[in-house]
C-alpha cells in the first residue's frame, strides 16, 4: 500500500490527478485535489497513481512507500 503525497507549494489545481484517481480525489471549491477518504492507494489503483505522478505538469505529486 502506497500513499499519495501532494506538494502544496507546487500544486496549482490543474486537475489531472483527480481525473485519473476519481476513487480517491475530488476537486475542492478552488480546483485543488481533495481526498475523499484517505490518500492510501490500494494496489488496484497503483498504476493510475503512478500515471498521475508522471502527468502532473507542476511535479506536485509523489507516491510514497
Amino acid at each position, binding site marked *: 500500500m502506497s500513499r499519495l503525497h501532494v506538494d502544496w507549494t*507546487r500544486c*496549482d*489545481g*490543474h*486537475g*489531472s490527478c483527480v*481525473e*485519473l484517481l476519481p476513487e480517491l480525489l475530488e476537486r475542492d471549491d*478552488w*480546483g*485543488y485535489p481533495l481526498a475523499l477518504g484517505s490518500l492510501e492507494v490500494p494496489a488496484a489503483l497503483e498504476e493510475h497513481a503512478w*500515471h*498521475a505522478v508522471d*502527468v502532473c*505538469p*507542476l*511535479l506536485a505529486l509523489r507516491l510514497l512507500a
Partner: protein
Amino acid sequence: MSHTLITALWWLGRGTGVMALVMFTISVVLGILTRSGRSVSWLPRFAATDLHRTAALTGTTLVGIHVGSLLLDPYAQLRLADLVIPFGGAYRPLWLGLGTTAADLLLAVVVTSLLRHRIGPRAFRLVHWATYVVWPVALLHGLGTGTDAATPWFRGIAVGCAAAVLGAVAWRTSPSFAERGWRRIPRKAVS
C-alpha cells in the same frame, strides 16, 4: 551507394522533416492546452498532457531519422559538425543553421523533460520556454532549406501549422487564459 538508395534517403529526409513539423505543431498546441488547465469535452486534461508528450517524442524521433538519413545522403553534404555548429554547412548554410539551432534546443528540452523529476519544476520550466523558439526556427528552416518549400502541399501544411500555433499563442496571451489555479482565482478581500 546505388542511385535508388540515395533517392530513398533524400525522400526520407524530406518526409520526416515535414512530419516532424506537424508533430511539433500538435505538441505546442497541446502544451498550451495543458498549461491552461482546461479540458476539451472529448479530451481529459491528463490525455492532453500525454498526447503533448507523445507528439513531442514522435517529432524528436522523426528529427533523428531526418538528420540521420541526410547524413548518409551524399547529395545533402551534411557533416556531423553541422549537427552542433550552425551556419557552417555546405548546402544553404543559413537555413540549415536554423535547423541545427532548432535541433540543439530541442535536445535540451527533451533531455530536461525526461529528467524533470530530478531537476525540479523551476529548471524544467525554464528550459521549456525554449520551445517557443524551436517551433518558429524549425518552420523557417523547413521553408528555407526544404526542397518542397515551393510546392502547394508544403505551403498548405506550413500555413496550417502556423495558423494553429498562432491561434494557440494568441489564446495563451489573452487575459481570459489565466483562469485556473489559486493565483488566478480572486479571493474575497479580507477587510
